[in-house]
């Protein structure tokens, strides 16, 4: 196909993941009371970044 879908999708999740990680580090931690005290932005952001990076790596290979 002309445009490899893994590139835009990978880039999107890497960007959103990084944004969440940043927000998880910098944002007010009081808001995590609702998510059982877990900094869900930080951890899930890392998961999303890793997924995005994996897609980008697969597309480059």
């Amino acid at each position, binding site marked *: *196909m*002309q*445009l490899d*879908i893994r590139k*835009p*999708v990978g*880039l*999107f*999740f890497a*960007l*959103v993941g990084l*944004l*969440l990680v940043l*927000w*998880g580090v910098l*944002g007010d931690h009081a*808001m*995590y009371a*609702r*998510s*059982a005290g*877990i900094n*869900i*932005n930080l951890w*899930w*952001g890392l*998961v*999303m970044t890793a*997924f995005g990076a994996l897609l980008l790596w697969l597309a480059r290979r």
Partner: protein
Amino acid sequence: MKLGLIDWTIMGLYFAFVLGIGFALRRYMKTTTDFFQSGRAIPAWVAGLAFISANLGAQEVMGMAASGAKYGVMTSHFYWIGAIPAMAFLAVFMMPFYYGSRARSVPEYLKLRFDEKTRGLNAVTFALMTVLSSGISMYAMGLLLNLLLGWSFDVSIWLCALIVLLYITMGGLTSAIYNEVLQFFMIVFGFLPLVLLGLHDVGGWSGLQAGLAMVASSHGYAPGAWSQSWAHLGSPADNPMGVEWFGMAMGLGFVLSFGYWCTDFLTVQRAMAANSMSAARRAPLIAAFPKMLFPFLVILPGMIAIVLHQRAVSGGFALPVKADGSLNYDLTIPMMLSHYLPQGMLGVGLTALLASFMAGMAGNVTAFNTVFTYDIYQAYIRREAADAHYLWVGRVATVGGIAASMAAAYLATRFNNIMDMLQLVFAFVNAPLFATFLLGMFWKRTTGHAAFSGLILGTLAAAAHHGLTLPAGSVSGIKGGWLGLVHHYPSEMAQNFWTAIWAWSTSFISTLLISLATRPRPESELRGLVYSLTERTVVAAGEPWWRRPAVLACVVLALTVALNLVFR
């Protein structure tokens, strides 16, 4: 629901990518094959994810969570027997005809196999139905965004329509497919944390089971009624759905499920865009793997929600109540999102929901513009024209389809009953479809006259059955009984399943009998269209097992049986 800058940024980024993908694809859309069929160049895994995603509209997601709260684990029947077997059948037995016949749409296959009138009937009803369902999902989205974010109904609808319009006119089916892949991952990443946090909250699987036992007892059912899928199907009185195993297996598992997954152009179009016969056959099977796991993503939140609601700790999670005092199950997902997710993840979850609204709409629009251009415009309005002309018509049809959907959405705000009635009529039209395809593909004697009359008679049978029966606790009217009353069903779902069974049987028997009485087409015209007159597609020697459709289908079915046994 209060959104922060981070949430708006994530949402904005999503829209930018959606439009960006459409823009990047624009220069590849040179012929109608590119625009309507993605140039038949989509890899199997992309076609597979789009196949599943096209069905994963927001109403499906929110509706399944609502059913999870209302009926518990039994809802997974809509996936495990109501989808997977039909998807495997489509892949192994039907895809060779759809893909191999070089038909460009499902109605066009009917034209090749039967005749012009059968195609015409299917094309026109399908086109109307896709426009209407996209309008209804637009309407639901407008209401939801108004409720959650305070956006005005008009702004939501116009904005969403404009975005879908831009990316489909630019990138055609490929644009829709790529955005469906993006949406698929958005749903997974947006909802999975919700499920994990919710499960943690109710005390894991055992805590959930204990809670569901309380829910079941409080409704007067056996303790396992919400956490077992088969054990309570002996009699309609034993389970909250009010159905018994035969109606479930035949009505949902056979007629409705095969009728939808094997004949609906909306999903089949994704597999038909694959880059080879092998990829087209594998696409529904690749889709089956996430499909069988979706209950954990979309039904489980509903089950968690009802347990939390039942425990009713003050300040804890509670489902909203409607004006008439009943629980508003439809808002389960949005309520869970705002209960568990902090700003940041909330943006991801909400964008996932918005994405599934838009992808659902885009799916309908791409199926509509293809059927309109090939099966209505080219068939009846202008037969011989340059390819560029049809490409132009396809883009105009996209605009027209979206405009008609918007009109339907606005109509729904005023006349809710008309929408319910139209959906009912379309359900009657769809019910007999699978009988026609089954006989057409596997019995070379089936004739065009028989197929056409079978469809009409099946639709009439569905209407008659609905008109003569009524679910318990309803009054005659839109729920049935408008022709008189011969039978009461324990629930609306049981009535639906049996309407489908009657329609299918009527269509099957009448198509069979009329075929015997009419003259069949010569066999030479049916090569590649009927099972016994088509060379078997041979998988190249040395292909690994995961590239062989038949083997893959067996794996899919075995895993589905295992899931059913675990949650029996």
